[in-house]
């Protein structure tokens, strides 16, 4: 019997049910099509509900899914049917708030895609192989946002490289458009 709380997956979908970022920690969905089918079903089941103030919850194919929406973003956390619902909700809240902090309050699909690296790092910091790493949004966001240089690098090099990088970033962003 599995005693440690386990997360089966964390999903971030858009308002049409398409993937922004998803992470599966369980073999319950071995193929990409199985995953997509699950996402589709979860989305269909939850899209009409109002999960904007409080996290909502549903049972589904012997999984417990907690979810919360903001703008055109839909956040989901899935656990097994015997999982403590409140633990799942804590993970969801951690993910949700951390994304909010990282996107500096502008939480929508466009912003999420533009900062996909932050979202992916965020997922990486919340759960490792199904086991909860951290649920405190401030800690999660703090770990993700520490985009400073390696302490070993000389100070001058840091500033110059950073300046260059920022400039280039502006350039590439406009090119990508």
């Amino acid at each position: 019997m599995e005693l440690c709380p386990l997360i089966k997956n964390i999903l971030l979908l858009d308002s049409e049910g398409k993937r922004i970022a998803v992470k599966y920690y369980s073999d319950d969905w071995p193929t990409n099509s199985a995953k997509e089918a699950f996402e589709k079903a979860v989305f269909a089941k939850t899209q009409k509900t109002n999960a904007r103030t409080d996290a909502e919850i549903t049972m589904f194919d012997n999984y417990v899914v907690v979810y919360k929406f903001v703008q055109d973003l839909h956040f989901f956390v899935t656990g097994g049917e015997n999982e403590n619902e409140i633990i799942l909700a804590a993970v969801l809240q951690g993910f949700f708030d951390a994304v909010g902090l990282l996107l500096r309050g502008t939480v929508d699909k466009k912003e999420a895609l533009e900062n996909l690296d932050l979202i992916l790092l965020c997922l990486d910091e919340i759960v490792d192989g199904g086991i909860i790493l951290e649920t405190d949004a401030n800690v999660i966001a703090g770990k993700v946002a520490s985009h400073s240089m390696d302490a070993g690098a000389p100070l001058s090099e840091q500033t110059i490289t950073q300046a260059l990088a920022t400039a280039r970033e502006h350039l590439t962003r406009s090119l990508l458009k």
Partner: protein
Amino acid sequence: MAQPFLKKDDDHDDEADYSPFLGIEKGAVLQEARVFNDHQLDPRRCSQVITKLLYLLNQGETFTKVEATEVFFAVTKLFQSRDLGLRRMVYVIIKELSPSADEVIIVTSSLMKDMTSKTDMYRANAIRVLCRITDGTLLTQIERYLKQAIVDKNPVVASAALVSGIHLLQTNPEIVKRWSNEVQEAVQSRAALVQFHALALLHQIRQNDRLAVNKLVSSLTKGSVRSPLAQCLLIRYTSQVIRESASNTQTGDRPFYDFLEGCLRHKAEMVIFEAARAITELNGVTSRELTPAITVLQLFLSSTKPVLRFAAVRTLNKVAMTHPIAVTNCNIDMESLISDQNRSIATLAITTLLKTGNEFSVDRLMKQITTFMSDIADEFKIVVIEAIRSLCLKFPLKHRSLMNFLSNIIREEGGFEYKKAIVDSIVILIRDIPEAKESGLLHLCEFIEDCEFTYLSTQILHFLGIEGPKTSDPSKYIRYIYNRVHLENATVRAGAVSTLAKFGAMVDSLKPRIFVLLRRCLFDTDDEVRDRATLYLNTLGADGAVVETGEDVKEFLFGSLDIPLVNLERSLKNYEPSEESFDINSVPKEVKIQPLAEKKAPGKKPTGLGGPPPGPPSTIDAYEKLLLSIPEFANFGKLFKSSAPVELTEAETEYAVNVVKHIFDGHVVFQYNCTNTIPEQLLENVTVIVDASEAEEFAEVASKPLRSLPYDSPGQTFVAFEKPEGVPAVGKFSNMLRFIVKEVDPSTGEAEDDGVEDEYQLEELEVVAADYMLKVGVSNFRNAWESMGPDCERVDEYGLGPRENLAEAVNAVINLLGMQPCEGTEVVPSNSRSHTCLLSGVYIGNVKVLVRLQFGIDGPKDVAMKLAVRSEDEAVSDVIHEIVASG
């Protein structure tokens, strides 16, 4: 080829649909990844490319082996950069690419360097990455660092090492087990999550050592756990300890209950809930123990947070199955949840109320449910219908309002499954509650007037044909049935013709009118309908020759085909056209056991459309097919019962074996289900050597070895014993697994030619009296009891000696007899001094048995029991007494 993700057919300028990944393509991104090889690295640009690669992987894109390898090698170059953000992305993508063993070597040194870095973030992430991709040999090299990391003062590093330990325990347990001193130290950490991870790992290291787990729990429950998550873990471990120790300590208070109860006052909701749930799931929980848990759950019911309400109502719903009275206090809160926005919560609330409700609240509840039904999905409605069905069987007097409810909702919109659930429910109510019959049949008639599902229409017509003629005024159904002949498709028309014929056969006064109707069907456009009409007109004697319907005609119309259709189908398929015509008597008649039908409706077959609720599980069919296919067992006759699988090995051993006991009249077959869990081995010629020296009445007659048992694909071997016919012989059997083991080369999967004979000791197996008893319920025990009559009744009294409480005594007797408790009488209200328990079953030889147990307990906890048995055979009644007397 790459897919253009998120590509829209319509306007690209639409700001809302803008995506930085618009039109992204795998080939192009792989080209871009060349920047990783640049002499002067640009961290931002590299990060962006990695993000794109991760985006592709996340969208379900796959890289070929070559592509993945190329990307992986390019990524390893990025370790040169000291940009922290880039390094983080490198860690993530390495995990996603899951490199092969020979590739891992390339990054090992870089990661090991990071593991010993001064930067905490490097250490933590490098540990997680390395542990994810490493194999056993590398692990011994880095073990020293991991042990250090576990007690690292940075909590992120410690957690990373501990979580990696939990994962590694699956693959390299012997290494991780060496870390227990460090893990133990980490359990005392001040950082909440370190404590959580350390506790999880420590428990997993020790989980097979019951004593150590016990010690761990008793030391930690004294209160040094700070993290809510760790506290939840501790609650789970504690209830496991309670579960395992319950059988040892029959007296005194339940250990650790105080700890669980104390957790109900914790400040974190997740801990409160975990504790409350743990208490409700305790074995044989008393109402005194339940009360505080129910109280906190009740508070959750009125929380503003949907998650809390859901968690509470789901738990209370489960409690209501076993302790309905304990939940009644929450009924008011529960009723307000019927209008909850979240329909999952509302459905759970309704079904809980239906379980806890008493006879008087039914009407009010039905009114509330009616408003609720219109705005929930079909799947929820089905749950509610099922709850209502069992409520109606519980309170037969309330059938009128419940039947009305069903007839109202059946007229509303709904899918097939939903309608089928309603129809099934009405049919079951008609069957079990005689008073509900006429109104129920009329509801069904009205339903088929406007039913879009051919399957349901034909099933209902069939049912009408059996039940309708027996009612006080059969003629009123004719109109509904004949309407079908006008208005429906051919399948339904044919069904209606058969039903009409049944009315004609059973009710002589209706015969002339039926003939008129049937003659009209002779001009139907469909040949099946015409054929049936012609056939029935002839058999019923429409030419005027026969007035009374003959016995053989009735048999033809109503007699069930006493051959299972599957068997008939199989025989027909095997039949080769020849001189000899097909003989229906050659079809095997091994039928599955029919559930006990009440005697008050003689000769009536259970006709629930969806099968009666306590029907035998379909696994029986599967077993039967399996056994029939083995020639050695073909002449054993009809399979009486197959037990649930009994494990003969501990979990996580080399070979996993469980056994299913198949009971025949004069034989017993043991089916050993074996699984080989060693990839490097192939087992051949697997047999189980059974020593039956402690089972005197059994003699081994056949053994069917398993030719080959490859890794991870279960196989079966069988051993059959003869025993005296009809006698419930019991005994103990010791088992030894014998086989030839061959080494398998893991890379090619080919086995070596030469094998070695080996043996493996399995646990003992017992055939007990309960194996000769089928659990078959009756829905109305009193009726069944009365109709069985006192002819073969045997009554006697027994002293059961001192027992902890009545519930324990009741359970012991139920398990001893292996019978089905009826009407929820297996639940003993706590602290009661006496209790009556009703059991039913079918004993070997297909003898129905009903048992009424009356228990009483006196001051010093001595339990006395009066056992009354009624059965169709007094010898069987005596046997039941013998079982109890010797148990």
